[in-house]
C-alpha cells in the first residue's frame, strides 16, 4: 500500500487524516472519543509489540500503562505545586520512562520463558500490582485515584490546554510519533529478531541471538510505549485510578489487539478504534453491549484468527489481480441476509432483555431507532422469523461465496507469478 504514494505516503495521509478529523467530527463528545481512541491506539500497538511481534501473550499489560499514568499524574501535580518547569507535551515521555523502568524490572525475570509460563507470570504480576494499588494509598490514591490539573504547566505555543481540542492535537501528535516509532522499531534488528524469536526461538538462538534478550527488548519497548499511553491518559482525564492497571484493562487491550488483528501493524489500530467506538457509542444505546463485545471476540478468535485486518488483507491478492469485482455480487448475496440475520438476532436479544428487566407497563423496547412492543407475540414471531430466514439464506449463499473466492484467488494458470 505505501508503494502507491512513495515510502512516506501512507504516513502523510495519516497525518492529514489526524489533522482534519476534528473538523469533520467537531462536537465535543467526538473529540473526547477521538482522544480516547488515540490513547487506545498507542496502548494496543504497544501490546502488539509483544503479542503480535514477539509472540508473548500477556495478561498484565495494564501494569505499565497504569504505572506510566500514575507517575505522569504525580509529575503533573509537582508541576502545579512545586512549579517544575516541564511543558505538558513532555509528560507522556516521562510516563514512558516509568513504564520502561518497570518493564526492565519485571521483564528481567518474566521474559526468561515464553508461552504459558510468560502468560501466567504476567497474570500474577498484574494481579499483584492491582492489589498493591489498593493497599498503597499514598501513591495510588486508593479507589478514588490520583487527580491532577494539566493546565498548570508552562504554556506551549501560547496554549495552556484548557480546551479539549488543544488536547486533541497534542494527543494526535504524540500518537503519530509513537506509532511511527513503533513501526520503525519493527524494522530494526531488535524488531526483526522479535519476529524471528516468535516464529522459532530455537533457530534464533543458533543464529547468535539470545531469545531471552530479544524478548526482553521487545518487552521493554512495549512497556515504554504503554507508559506513553498512560501519560496521554493522564493528560486527557487528569485522573488515574486502580482500574487503569487491573486485569480488566489488560483484558481490554488484548481484545483490541486480537479483534483488530495481531498479525498486522495496523491491526491494533483498527481494533482500538472499533472497540473505543463500541465502548463509548454502543454502550449508550444498549446495556447488552458487553455481551455483543464478548460474542464478537469469541467469534473472531474462532473464525477470523487474523482479525478484522486479516479479513481485509485476505483480499489483497484478488485486488492486485483486479478481481475484486468478481466477489462483489456473492458478497452482496450472502452479506445482506447475514446482516438481516444479525439484526434479527440482536432484536431477539434486546426484546428478551427488555421483557425480563423493564419496568411493568413499559412494554416498548427501543433499538435500531425503532420502538417494539415486547409483549406482543407477533413482534417476537417477526424477529425470530427474520433471524431464521436471514440465517438460512446466508447459509444457502455461502457455497457461492466460497466458489467465487476460490475463483478470484486462483492464480494457477498464471504459473509461478505469485
Amino acid at each position, binding site marked *: 500500500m505505501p508503494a502507491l504514494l512513495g515510502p512516506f505516503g501512507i504516513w502523510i495521509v495519516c497525518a492529514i487524516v489526524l489533522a482534519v478529523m476534528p473538523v469533520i467530527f467537531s*462536537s*465535543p*463528545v467526538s473529540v*473526547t*472519543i477521538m482522544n*480516547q481512541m488515540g490513547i487506545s491506539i498507542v496502548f494496543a500497538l504497544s501490546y502488539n509489540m509483544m503479542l503480535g511481534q514477539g509472540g508473548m501473550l500477556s495478561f498484565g499489560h495494564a501494569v505499565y500503562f497504569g504505572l506510566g499514568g500514575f507517575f505522569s499524574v504525580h509529575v503533573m501535580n509537582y508541576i502545579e505545586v512545586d512549579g517544575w518547569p516541564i511543558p505538558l507535551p513532555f509528560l507522556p515521555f516521562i510516563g514512558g520512562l516509568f513504564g520502561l523502568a518497570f518493564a526492565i524490572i519485571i521483564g528481567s525475570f518474566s521474559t526468561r520463558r515464553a508461552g504459558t509460563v510468560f502468560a501466567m507470570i504476567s497474570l500474577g504480576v498484574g494481579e499483584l500490582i492491582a*492489589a498493591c494499588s*489498593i*493497599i498503597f*494509598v499514598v501513591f495510588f490514591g*486508593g*479507589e*478514588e*485515584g490520583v*487527580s491532577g*490539573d494539566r*493546565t498548570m504547566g508552562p504554556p506551549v505555543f501560547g496554549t495552556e490546554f*484548557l*480546551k*479539549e481540542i488543544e488536547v486533541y492535537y497534542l494527543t494526535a501528535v504524540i500518537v503519530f510519533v509513537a506509532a511511527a516509532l513503533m513501526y520503525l522499531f519493527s524494522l530494526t534488528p531488535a524488531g526483526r529478531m522479535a519476529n524471528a524469536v516468535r516464529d522459532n526461538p530455537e533457530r534464533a538462538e543458533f543464529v547468535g541471538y539470545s531469545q531471552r534478550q530479544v524478548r526482553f527488548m521487545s518487552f521493554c519497548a512495549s512497556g515504554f510505549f504503554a507508559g506513553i499511553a498512560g501519560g496521554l*491518559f493522564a493528560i486527557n*482525564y*487528569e*485522573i488515574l*485510578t486502580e*482500574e*487503569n492497571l487491573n486485569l480488566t484493562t489488560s483484558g481490554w487491550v488484548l481484545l483490541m489487539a486480537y479483534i483488530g488483528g495481531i498479525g498486522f501493524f495496523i491491526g491494533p489500530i483498527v481494533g482500538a478504534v472499533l472497540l473505543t467506538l463500541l465502548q*463509548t457509542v454502543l*454502550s*449508550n444505546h444498549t*446495556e447488552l*453491549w*458487553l455481551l455483543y463485545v464478548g460474542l464478537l471476540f469469541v467469534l473472531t478468535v474462532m473464525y477470523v484468527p487474523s482479525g478484522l485486518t486479516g479479513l481485509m488483507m485476505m483480499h489483497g491478492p484478488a485486488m492486485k489481480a483486479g478481481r475484486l469485482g468478481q466477489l462483489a455480487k456473492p458478497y452482496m448475496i450472502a452479506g445482506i441476509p447475514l446482516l*438481516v440475520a444479525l439484526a434479527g438476532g440482536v432484536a431477539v436479544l434486546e426484546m428478551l432483555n427488555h421483557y425480563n*428487566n423493564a*419496568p*411493568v*407497563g*413499559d412494554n*416498548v423496547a*427501543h433499538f435500531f431507532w*425503532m*420502538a*417494539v*412492543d415486547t409483549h*406482543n407475540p*407477533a*413482534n417476537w414471531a*417477526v*424477529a425470530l*422469523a*427474520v433471524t431464521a*430466514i436471514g440465517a438460512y439464506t446466508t447459509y444457502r449463499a455461502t457455497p457461492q461465496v466460497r466458489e467465487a473466492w476460490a475463483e478470484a484467488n486462483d492464480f494457477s494458470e498464471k504459473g509461478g507469478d505469485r
Partner: protein
Amino acid sequence: MGIIKKVRTLTATALLAASFTGASFAADNIRIAFIDPLSGPFATTGESGYRTFEYAAQTLVNDKGGVLGGRMFEIVPMDNKISPKESLIQLKRAISEGIHYIVQGNSSGVANALTDAINKHNRRNPDQRIIFLNYSAVDPALTNEKCNFWHFRFDANADIKMDALTDVIAEDQDIKKVYIIGQDYSFGKAVAAAAVKFIGAKRPDIEIVGNELHPIGKVKDFTPYATKIKSSGADAVITGNWGADMVGLGKAIVEAGVDAPIFTYYGAHDGITATFADKGVDVIRVVHEGTFNPPSAEFKAFNEGFKKVNPDKDLNQPRIIGTIQMLAKAMEAAGTDDPVAVATALEGMDFTNIYGRKVHMRASDHQIIQDVNITVHTDKNIEVDADNSGYGLLTEKTVKEAGKDLPTSCEMKRPS
C-alpha cells in the same frame, strides 16, 4: 417477504410509541444526566437508582405540571460502568448535549473524580456551568476538604451516619466490645476512623477488639474473618461493607454463631435482605436516612406506585425523592434553570421531605442535614419490605438532624 412485514409492524408500533411518549421529547425539557453504573457488576444498584429518579421526576414533577411554567424534568441515563474514566467521558457527553445538571451516587471514587472535573470545567468554561447533585456518595471529604460550590450532597455522609450509629451504641450498656471491619479503601477507612473517633468520645470504656480492613471485592469466603470476630468476643460489629462483601460478611458472622448486632451502612436491598432472611432478624442493623417502617402515608403511596412499575426493584435510595423535589423547588425559587442561580437557591434551603421531616441544605459545605435512622432487619411490623422477601427495615431509633453540630473544613468559594 418477512423483512417488509417486520418493517411494517415495527413502524406501526413506533408510531404508537411516539404518540405515547411524545411529550417528554419537548425541546425545553430540563435534562438531568444520571451518571451511574447501568452495566457490569454494580448495575443493580445503578438501575434501581435510575428507576427511582425516573419515577420521582415523573410523579412528583412532571405529572404536577413541571417547573418554571411547564418545563419537564427528563432523566438522561448515562452508563459510567462505575469507572471514573467512563464517568468523565459521560460528563463530557452531557456537556456537549447542553446538560447542566448531573446526578450521581454510586462510589465515592467516581464522585471525587466528577466533582473535581466539574470544578475544573466550570472554572475553564464559565458560560457553560454544571451542577453536581450527589445522592449517595458519602465520603466525608466531598463536603470537607474537597468541597466546591457546584457539589451538593443529599445523603448523610459517613461521619454523620457514624455519629448517629454510635449514639445508639453508646446508649446500650451491654455493649462492651466492638469489632470494626470494612473494605480496604477510602470509604472503609473513613468509616473505621469515624467509629474509633466517636466511640472513643462517647463511650471510652468500650474496647475496640478489632479494627480490620479486608480487600474490596476480592474475598471469596468471609469465614476466617467471622472466626476472628467470634473469638474476639465482640458484642457488636460495625461495617461499611456493601454489595457482595456485605452479604458474605453478614452470612459468615451469623453462621459462626456470633450473637451480636451488626451495624451496617448498606446491609439491605439488592438481594442482601433476601439472602439474610431469617438469619438476619434482629442482627442486621442499617443506619440511613430512609424511614421505611413505619412509613409515612405519602411515602407508602409513593412506594406502592413505584413497585407497581418496578416489581423487582426496591426504592432503596429514597433520598433521590428529596433530590428531585429540592431541585424543582430551587428552580421555582430562582425562577430560572441557570445553574448559578439554582445553586444559590439550593444553598441553605429548608424543606420537608416525603416522611414529613425537616431537612436543611447546609450552605457552608452543601451537606444536607436530616434525620438519620437506625433500623433493624426483621419481618415483624413490616409494611414496606425489601427484595419482596417479607423482610424489611424497621426503625428502632431516630437521630434528629444528625450531624448538625459536626464541623466542616470546607472553605466554600462562590462564583463572584
